[in-house]
């Protein structure tokens, strides 16, 4: 009996991409089937290693490494502590500690909340929403992520063009977003998309 050969993982993903593009953008699928026009000079890759070594020589960066980092002999915590406990290092360390403490004391937050700091204010839900809409461009993505109602965190709805002429309703995709990645997604959104998201 003939058995269908198992698909190579790379081939499986190529098909997955084609299906994904078919659904999202037939236009981009069409472009992908064409040559993208990017080329390299003949022999470019063959001489690249020599070019890099020439550059390394030119800037004097060619070296013989002493030891590989992972192979460096691990010193015990006691040996490391001893090396720190030389008088000169101890005095320098104490000086840095004093400066750091003085700096921390000086830059402690003032009693009045700073612009963008919502935590110190008592606002109604409407005021908070208006504030966010007015200041959407000044806020950091992390602040926006905190400001979004928690029930909107796990998923973002994305609408795309109708998948076929028969089906006129726009296709809606709901993609699960881990809260940790929300900042990245917000970072990549345009101002209009952010406003739309906040308007619900």
């Amino acid at each position, binding site marked *: 009996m003939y058995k269908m050969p198992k698909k190579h*993982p*790379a081939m499986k*993903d*190529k098909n*997955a*991409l084609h299906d*994904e*593009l078919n659904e*999202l*953008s037939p*236009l*981009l699928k069409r*472009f*992908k089937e*064409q*040559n*993208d*026009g*990017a*080329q*390299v*000079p003949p022999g*470019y*890759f063959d001489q*690249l*290693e020599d*070019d*890099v*070594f020439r*550059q*390394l020589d030119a*800037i004097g*960066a*060619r070296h*013989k*490494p*002493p*030891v*590989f*980092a*992972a*192979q460096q002999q691990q010193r015990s915590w006691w040996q490391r502590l001893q090396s720190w406990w030389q008088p000169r290092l101890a005095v320098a360390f104490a000086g840095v500690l004093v400066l750091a403490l003085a700096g921390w004391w000086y830059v402690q937050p003032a009693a009045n909340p700073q612009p963008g700091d919502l935590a110190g204010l008592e606002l109604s839900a409407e005021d908070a929403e208006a504030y966010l809409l007015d200041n959407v461009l000044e806020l950091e993505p992390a602040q926006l992520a905190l400001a979004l109602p928690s029930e909107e965190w796990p998923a*973002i709805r*994305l609408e*795309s*063009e109708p998948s076929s002429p028969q089906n006129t309703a726009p296709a809606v*995709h709901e*993609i*699960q*977003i*881990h809260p*940790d*990645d*929300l900042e*990245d*997604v917000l*970072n*990549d*959104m345009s101002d209009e*998309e952010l406003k739309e998201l906040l308007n619900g």
Partner: protein
Amino acid sequence: MHPLPVILIKIHKDLEIPAKNKPATDEQILELLRSDRSFDQGFRVLMHTYKERLYWHIRRMVLVHEDADDVLQNTFIKIYRGVLQFEGKSKLYTWLYRIATNEAITFLQNRSRHQSSSIDDSAAVLQNRLKADSWFDGDALQLQLQEAMAQLPDKQRQVFNLRYYDEMPYEEMAHLLDTSVGALKASFHHAVKKIEHFFREADHV
């Protein structure tokens, strides 16, 4: 883009790449890099194995061959200087990819500082640079696609390139970019919609 076959290289009896006509493995490369005597040879094998993947990754970010060549050479110089710090906690390519990405982003930021901040102007500059690039012979639509991609935010463009050109599975991409599959699907979807919108606005479809 697959690494080219590695020719048999015999450094001495303990350090040998026995894989004729096969790409070197990360372990073989690192083994060569660990020895003073074979460090440069190991670095040569590293470049040979990953140069094409890294080049195309950089080229899709900076678009023009001359720039991609500069950024790739700087990337390899950084790798040469820093490879001793590689601790093996991730795949070697993941580490190389991050260095190349940072190098390309720094290059783009430096270039945009010297150019006009207007989006229309930078699109025109890009169009001129691509037209002047002897190593780009795409048609008008491919040129428009590059322009559309250039207007994507850095992270979205990165996700779009990895998915659209490299056809990387989301799971692998999530590991590479240290984010979730859901976030990557959202980024790719947004990028595709923005590119389509660009074409609709330009009335090319």
